[in-house]
């Protein structure tokens, strides 16, 4: 490996390690608020990976929508359902071991076939930068119909959430 691809490789390793540890903490921690904060680390790591892959617009949207909106919604949800702020003992159900076996088995199968199939495929180095302008052009020309459908979906979700959550 020459010096040119060492830096992104190193960055990927650090980000991936942080994401893996935080993801495991999200599903194992005994503190609901800590789970939300570990989720922020995972989402920020994903945004960093998007920057590494030269997908700048997706990275910015990831930070704005996921970290800025969705995690805040989660924190509101935690507060409104009055979960104890602190350690709780009964956050897991009694299928924990079965769930662990399923997850490990699934990862084993996925990893085997991914490694078998695309072991040597290299990403272009440096990655081809696709600017926000090009992404916007793509959304509003090629994918304009899915875009409109997403708009209707968001409206429906907005109305649905208001109807479900309002008091009678």
């Amino acid at each position: 490996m020459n010096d040119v691809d060492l830096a992104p490789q190193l960055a990927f390793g650090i980000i991936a390690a942080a994401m893996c540890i935080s993801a495991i903490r999200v599903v194992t921690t005994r503190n609901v608020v800590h789970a939300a904060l570990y989720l922020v680390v995972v989402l920020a790591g994903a945004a960093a990976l998007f920057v590494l892959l030269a997908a700048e617009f997706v990275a910015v949207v990831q930070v704005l929508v996921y970290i800025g909106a969705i995690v805040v919604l989660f924190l509101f949800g935690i507060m409104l359902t009055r979960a104890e702020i602190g350690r709780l003992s009964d956050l897991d159900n009694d299928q924990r071991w079965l769930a662990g076996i399923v997850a490990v088995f699934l990862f084993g199968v996925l990893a085997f076939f991914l490694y078998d199939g695309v072991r040597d495929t290299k990403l272009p180095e440096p990655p081809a930068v696709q600017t926000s302008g090009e992404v916007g052009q793509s959304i509003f020309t090629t994918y304009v119909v899915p875009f409109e459908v997403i708009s209707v979906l968001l409206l429906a979700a907005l109305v649905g959430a208001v109807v479900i959550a309002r008091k009678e």
Partner: protein
Amino acid sequence: MLLVEFLLLAAFLFCVGVYGVLARKNAVLVLMSVELILNSVNINLVAFGAMHGGAAGLAGQTFALFVIAVAAAEVGVGLAIVLLIYRNRRSIDLTEADLMRG
């Protein structure tokens, strides 16, 4: 960077999310695990897009944006349902929400 590194990381996050959905009984934590799953799909989409470049790269990024929008809608409705369950039952323990069990 190799493509398989990104795909393996995404597969790992997906499996952690599946574990969370199966093993957690707090409804908010289950929704967080679903977010992990959706996020791993986004990593896959952008990584495949970066591998192919050009129109396929734009397609990958565009669909990643669509997935983010769907995730936002899903969390909005999901948390509304969780609030409703909490208001009616004073608990968001999913093992107790068995009204529709056959």
